[in-house]
């Protein structure tokens, strides 16, 4: 069904103004705050740090910004194996987080979508409630839980189940717990939105044709929820690569995450070109998943039309 609005034909000259405004305003807004900053970050990454401040970040010559390409930062990144390992490690953690969120979240979304209709809003609200409370505070809460003298260890020890505290903090375990914890709602929501709209009649038809429920799930439900799976995965994977707060609070020296590297380069080393170069490479890495996400969203839109 096409919900296309008419082109308000007869008011062309009049509405051209209205149309220009409605399109122009957000266009300028995002141009200024999203597009241009990305260009600037590219430019900075190709420059060199002079003492501790950047005096002329953009050299204007003959009315055009001067472009001297200085690959110092990039050379450093590409030669120093630590950067390479960190990028890899970030992608790995993001990938594991995504998979874990999918494994935990898909069944959850599925069961939620199959629950009695009148309970679903409450179930949804209970999932969303933690989302509305501060993310930072909840990560901090995991600190209190996982630390050597934290709640979990203390409880287990006082119950006599363990002798020495479990090393659950400042390592991959704590990092992943924090990541999965934060990103789980982002996986569940798109999946739920998709699964709840799934017509149960497909499954009934399958059963009618002799398919077992198990097979029906894999052959019908999963493929039909593909859009939700992609949306959820992208909403987890992409930001997870560059995550800063969780590795900082729950990770340790062994958990290499590129978000922390960027932060440290900027705040601790004051090396803006280096931070920018790190960012640019990160952007290049997530361009493909981002394109995938945009395409999936656009396809969904067309399918509805």
């Amino acid at each position, binding site marked *: 069904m096409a919900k296309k609005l*008419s082109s308000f034909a*007869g008011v*062309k000259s009049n509405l051209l103004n209205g149309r220009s405004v409605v399109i122009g305003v957000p266009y300028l807004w995002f141009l200024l705050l999203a597009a241009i900053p990305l260009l600037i970050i590219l430019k900075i990454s190709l420059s060199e740090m002079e003492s501790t401040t950047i005096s002329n970040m953009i050299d204007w010559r003959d009315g055009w910004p001067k472009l001297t390409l200085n690959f110092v930062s990039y050379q450093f990144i590409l030669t120093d194996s630590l950067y390479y390992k960190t990028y890899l490690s970030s992608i790995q953690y993001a990938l594991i987080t995504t998979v874990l969120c999918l494994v935990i979240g898909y069944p959850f979304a599925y069961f939620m979508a199959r629950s009695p209709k009148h309970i679903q809003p409450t179930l949804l609200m209970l999932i969303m409630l933690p989302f509305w409370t501060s993310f930072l505070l909840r990560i901090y809460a995991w600190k209190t839980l996982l630390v050597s003298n934290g709640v979990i260890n203390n409880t287990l020890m006082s119950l006599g189940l363990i002798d020495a505290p479990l090393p659950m903090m400042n390592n991959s375990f704590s990092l992943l717990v924090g990541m999965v914890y934060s990103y789980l709602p982002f996986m569940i929501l798109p999946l739920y939105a998709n699964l709840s709209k799934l017509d149960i009649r497909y499954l009934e038809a399958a059963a009618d044709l002799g398919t077992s429920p198990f097979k029906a799930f894999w052959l019908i439900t999963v493929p039909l929820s593909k859009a939700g799976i992609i949306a959820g995965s992208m909403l987890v994977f992409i930001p997870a690569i560059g995550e800063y707060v969780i590795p900082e609070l729950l990770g340790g020296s062994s958990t290499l995450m590129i978000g922390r590297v960027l932060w440290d380069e900027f705040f601790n080393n004051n090396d803006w070109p280096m931070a920018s170069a790190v960012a640019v490479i990160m952007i290049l890495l997530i361009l493909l998943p981002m394109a995938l996400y945009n395409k999936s969203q656009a396809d969904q839109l067309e399918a509805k039309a």
Partner: protein
Amino acid sequence: MATAPKDLNKPAQEVLLRIEGLTKIYDGNVKAVDDVSLTVTKGEIFALLGGSGCGKSTLLRMLAGFEIPTKGKIFLAGDDITNLPPYQRPINMMFQSYALFPHLSVWENVAFGLKRDGMPTAELAERVEKMLNLVQLSKYAKRKPHQLSGGQQQRVALARSLAKRPKLLLLDEPLGALDKKLRETTQLELVNIIEEVGVTCVLVTHDQEEAMTMASRIAVMSEGSFMQVGEPDAVYEMPNSRHVADFIGNVNIFEGIVDIDEPDHVTIRSPECIHYVGHGISGHSGMAVGVALRPEKIMLSKDKPETEYNWCEGEVIEMVYFGAHTTYHLKLDSGMVIKAQELNNTRDLSCNLTWGDRAYAYWNDLAMAVLTN
């Protein structure tokens, strides 16, 4: 036609709507409306009839102002409104989905257009009152659309579209959303209200029954142009092409060659039988034509007719029982299957034909329409 007979002694009605060469081409050279011209007189109910994609909705939208024609002009009461925006045209539309404003009450929905005109409060209240009475919804004035049934919502939509006393009322598939029973009663009500108000109407529909019962004139549309324009009985009984004949109602079409061509009668030979048509046609001997015969004009009998013409013989291969009438599918010796419709005018069905019976189909010499295209 559900309307009362027109007063034939009145002078020719004034033309309200005139369309000249209206064309709408979308990108990719899709011609939605192809060079359409038309006049609609004041007080007429004019139906645009056609299947999906024929251009009727596009034409309607151009009248309303939601699309700008690529070529051509539209004149309303002599004024050129081709390029006027919808809110400047003295035209109102009743949408298929009603498009009632969900956040406004029935009263406010009807008053909406009047408020935009800046009508003084007392006059406005009076007008809204009148409109609600017209559609018998005064008791529901304070309700919101979601608190009304489908039929009630439609009446609100109608009241709203008539409130401003438009010169032209556009109806987009007015009965489309209603079930059959409701459709029949609503049809009559709708026409009565429209005639009581005296507004000129253009309606768009894919349902030929709707068109024929409600309209005083029909245009059968296909692929952006008019196939035939005329009063319902003219279009039905005298279709000018196979397309029109087939589109409206059911029809059997025999292919044949004109044999004898006289000013007052014609005979046509076809593989199944010889047709004797009791009027002249514009054609000549030897011409290939189609003979259109509607099922209700065909009578069936177990006995062979005595005339030489206008009958054929076949086997009943199918019977479709509609309650009030039955349609028989007769397979003729030539292989062609024709449909014949008989009224069930007795409750004793045992004397009727049944599957496998051999029967004769016959008709009179004015029952056919000769098609040259």
